[in-house]
């Protein structure tokens, strides 16, 4: 399949993650250091968002990301976002992290599926980046990082043919195959059915470059049109108004990839009942993956080596809850269906002493250039992370 898919997968999932975190941070209204009494302070969400965005668009990480390569496995990718979500003083419990990842993946799956043209995946990506730039509009340094990635995207993807974009799209769809987690906001908006499948409309504007179906034109052997006929179907399509912009700035026209959350629209997930597909997928994942260690090593090295903000005044940070109450979060952790659990990788880690020793060795090798007060904590953090998976 296409070896250029990973940057698009990473950036779009990251964008969805930021939308959700932003909404939850506002809803949870974390009091800041400098919050005055009785005044709602939005400031704490800014350092959290800044830290995560700055980590996500780290130049070295982006360089590695853009190298042609196969997609990471679902497990390895999930670990990247775990690290990313913890790149600030914010902490997430397992249940909240699970919910966050479910929402991110279903949202992007929806966007990929509904893209009118394969090339429109790029417009979806640009929508995410436009919104990210809005989050950090006050930080010129980070803005620069994002713009650099924007330019790299344009340089890498704008010249690709429709066929190559279709391959990228197919690679993404294979990655998302058989995921049918029901998302409350999708169910309410009637874009997802109660069986978890997305609604594919057969009306609305056709993609740019496509004609409204219905016309048959016949030409004679000289190439002159001699006849026209029409056919009708249940579809109800119209011509599109204009094409979205593929430049650094511009009207993308497409709404897919823009922020669908707001403080008034809380997000919940319903765990779909067990299905044969999911069970068989879970079985497949238990088989030892020799590459998993390699992937984890590589990603851990990149993200673990980045300078992560230390909370001022020695605070241990705050915990963000993706559910409305702590009790709900606890309940979700206990009732998560087995086949949707992301714990699968842990079975190997704890049961095989050899593997555990190997992972400890890898952690020992992580590059720590100068002694940093938090480095031991980070190493433990990663191990704890893997234990907790």
């Amino acid at each position, binding site marked *: 399949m*296409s070896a250029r898919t990973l940057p698009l997968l990473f950036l779009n999932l990251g964008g969805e993650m930021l939308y959700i975190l932003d909404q939850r941070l506002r809803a949870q209204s974390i009091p800041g250091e400098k919050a005055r009494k009785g005044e709602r302070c939005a400031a704490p969400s800014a350092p959290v968002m800044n830290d995560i965005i700055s980590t996500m668009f780290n130049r070295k990480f982006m360089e590695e990301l853009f190298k*042609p390569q196969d997609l990471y496995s679902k497990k390895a990718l999930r670990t990247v976002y775990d690290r990313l979500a913890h790149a600030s003083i914010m902490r997430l419990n397992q249940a909240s992290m699970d919910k966050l990842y479910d929402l991110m993946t279903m949202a992007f799956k929806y966007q990929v*599926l509904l893209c009118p043209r394969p090339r429109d995946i790029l417009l979806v990506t640009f929508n995410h980046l436009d919104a990210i730039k809005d989050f950090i509009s006050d930080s010129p340094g980070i803005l620069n990082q994002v713009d650099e990635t924007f330019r790299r995207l344009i340089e890498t993807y704008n010249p690709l043919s*429709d066929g190559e974009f*279709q391959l990228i799209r197919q690679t993404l769809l294979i990655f998302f195959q058989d995921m049918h987690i029901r998302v409350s906001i999708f169910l309410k908006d009637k874009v997802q059915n109660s069986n978890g*499948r997305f609604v594919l409309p057969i009306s609305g504007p*056709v993609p740019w470059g496509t004609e409204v*179906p219905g016309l048959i034109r*016949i030409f004679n052997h000289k190439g002159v049109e001699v006849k026209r006929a029409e056919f009708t179907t249940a579809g109800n399509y119209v011509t599109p108004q204009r094409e979205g912009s593929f430049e650094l700035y511009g009207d993308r026209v497409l709404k897919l990839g823009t922020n669908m959350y707001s403080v008034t629209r809380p997000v919940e997930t319903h765990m779909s009942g067990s299905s044969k597909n999911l069970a068989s997928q879970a079985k497949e994942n238990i088989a030892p993956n020799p590459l998993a260690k390699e992937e984890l090593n590589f990603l851990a090295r990149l993200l673990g080596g980045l300078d992560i903000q230390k909370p001022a005044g020695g605070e241990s940070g705050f915990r963000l809850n993706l559910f409305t109450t702590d009790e709900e979060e606890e309940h979700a952790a206990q009732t998560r269906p087995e086949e949707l659990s992301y714990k699968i990788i842990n079975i190997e880690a704890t049961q095989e002493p050899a593997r555990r020793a190997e992972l400890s060795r890898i952690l020992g090798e992580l590059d720590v250039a100068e002694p940093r007060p938090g480095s031991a904590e980070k190493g433990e953090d990663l191990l704890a992370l893997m234990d907790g998976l």
Partner: protein
Amino acid sequence: SVSPQAAWCELPSRVLLVLTSQRGVQMYDADGSTMVFWHALDVPELPAAHSVFARGIAAAGGCFVCVGEPRAWAGWWPWAGPGPADPPDPTGTSFGAVLVFDIPPKGTNVTLSEVLEQHRDPITDIAAEQGQAPDGAGDLVTADDCGTLCLWSSREEFTLLGKIPGSGCTCSSVALWNGIVAAGYGNGQIRLWEAGSGRIRAQVSAHARWIYALDLAPLTGKLLSGAEDSFVHVWKLSRDPDTDDIEVQHCHAECVTDTQVCGARFCDPAGDTFAVTGYDLSEILCYGPA
């Protein structure tokens, strides 16, 4: 590894199951028990940036199996004529080659007899004549990512008879019947071309999304098209014997609700029944007369 394509190749002497993957081409006996032959993709210089796998499979000329393969640009164009005005970036370019395998009536002595290099873009589909080719028309058509179609004659050696230049829109699927080339495109159009002259004879705004599959029923000239817009259409191709005009009529439409159709095939040579597959669909849907 992922296997993007599988096809039955019916030759007069035997039937082979041909599979393509990122590693190469595999051929099996009809019951799948024996691997008859396997060919590794010849793309060591291709940078990983390229989607490397064989696409397009067809049986042709009574004893050949043709498979499309991407090839790396090695600094020179294989065509006799001049290359494109702007030489493409050598780090990211491949073009399309068609591998022609000579299949013995039995046994495993399959040989690569020819490599046809006329496409500048990766091959997407290959189709052999399923009816009777008129004089001068070819019996094999190959299509690529840019929409270019090449027409070939497979007598003894493969000869290029004509080339229909593409307009940039991917031709995702192609069929050939009685000298009529039916081509499905990424923008939802179906076009019919005269195989002998290379002229366009019909243009249908058939689908609202990327056409994934075209199939032809050789006994009746019915054409099946399946696309990402959830629709499957049945068309009827015909040729007026007096005027030599090519006709296409719409016969039937099926909407597979909330499903992007990925595969569609007739189940019988008259085209009375057809089967459909789709993304995230674990079933094969079969449609037949009421």
